């Protein structure tokens, strides 16, 4: 579903990604872990077609980036630590706007389904700026799944969430993954990543330094694997 070969990203003289190779099979849930400044967000922004690669090849759902970015974007849902929602619009209006931008059919029906999925159907007429951070993040996930994408990218989705909101987000993420979507999530929260993901890749100093499936990881634990990958 996602193929990345020898990906390099430079900002001026600074090289953030130094030849990343990365492959995700359909239906996999990959946790991309790494310290601050490792290049996780840059990598995800390239996958999301928000940033152009300096070198290398990126292919999502059979489409090349950046040449076929519009086709990729139609199959992609992105959730970041920012909600990507308008505070002065209601939950329903936000989803309606994005539904128009994705040219969805049966917009009202789809909005109702998505709001029920993220548990915000009773707050659909409330302005988003009145929502708690957790509710905004749930609605952000609703926005991202609105067009039923094949691939979901989550960039630190737990940032700023309290314990209850994080647990709720866990449930929503499980639902999203259970729908057969391919998921790539960056996170600092190893425990949550361990709970949700089927594969763990460590991005360090602009390269994928280690990769292990859940089955492979059974022999050790994620924290030990993570520390070992960073030390190596």
């Amino acid at each position, binding site marked *: 579903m996602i193929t990345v070969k020898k990906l390099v990203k430079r900002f001026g003289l600074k090289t953030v990604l130094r030849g990343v190779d990365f492959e995700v099979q359909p239906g996999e849930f990959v946790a991309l872990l790494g310290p601050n400044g490792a290049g996780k967000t840059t990598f995800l*922004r390239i996958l999301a077609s928000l940033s152009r690669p300096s070198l290398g090849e990126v292919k999502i759902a059979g489409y090349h980036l950046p040449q076929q970015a519009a086709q990729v974007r139609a199959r992609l849902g992105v959730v970041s630590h920012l909600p990507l929602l308008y505070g002065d619009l209601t939950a329903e209006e936000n989803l309606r*706007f994005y539904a128009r*931008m994705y040219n969805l059919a049966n917009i009202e029906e789809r909005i109702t389904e998505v709001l029920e999925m993220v548990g915000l159907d009773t707050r659909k007429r409330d302005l988003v700026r009145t929502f708690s951070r957790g509710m905004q993040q749930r609605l952000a996930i609703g926005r991202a799944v609105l067009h039923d994408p094949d691939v979901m990218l989550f960039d630190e989705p737990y940032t700023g969430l309290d314990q209850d909101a994080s647990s709720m987000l866990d449930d929503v993420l499980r639902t999203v993954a259970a729908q057969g979507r391919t998921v790539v999530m960056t996170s600092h929260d190893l425990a949550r990543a361990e709970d949700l993901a089927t594969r763990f890749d460590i991005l360090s100093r602009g390269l994928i330094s280690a990769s292990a499936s859940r089955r492979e990881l059974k022999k050790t634990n994620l924290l030990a694997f993570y520390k070992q990958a960073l030390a190596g």
Partner: protein
Amino acid sequence: MNNTVYGIKTTKKDFAAKPSFLRAVFAIVWKDIQAEYRSFELISAMLVFSLLVIIIFNFALNLDIKMRETVTAGVLWTTFAFAGTLGLNRSMSVEKDRGCLDGLLLAPVDRSAIYFGKAISNLTFMLVVEAIVLPVYSILYNTNLFQPGLLLVILLGSIGYVGVGTLLATMSVQTRTRDILLSILLFPVVLPVLLPAIIASNGFLTRVELAEIMFPIGLLIAYDIIFISVAFMVFDNVVEE
């Protein structure tokens, strides 16, 4: 084809269709109008600023009726230009602060549709402010501004201003110094629009021959077309890292 997974209906295969250019533009304009209707932040800031400027000028330039007519064009365009900068900054800050610009860029639409959507919203807000400022100015300065020719010049000047301003606001909003950067970038670039707009406005207000006003109007139209075409061509590069 609809599927049901874990009790949630999915709309697979509905998503792939790219929305039409006009549909995307309309969606953005409607979203901006809805948000502004709720908050009234952008128009109120522009309006209060504009009214303050013309009131200050009214006290500062205690002039006779003849002199008032000659300074009107300059005062009006100074007011519109500075108020417009406030509006442009605010309009793009709303998109940037909550990551909404990324949300727009993630949609499978032609990115020039985003430019045109934002530009039309900005133009609408600017025209609303101008529609309120003009009668207030007419009363304060005892000058008749409701001349079709002058209104046409204001429309053409506003189109050019917003056309280039939306592009530059999109660039400047991605920097740390966005509040000051837009003014620094915008005014030198938009000067070819403002100068013919002032000359043509002055021409209509002082009732010179139409033939003399046609040249600045022609320049205005030409600059509008050039600026909008350039913005259309480079917007994709401006928004992508």
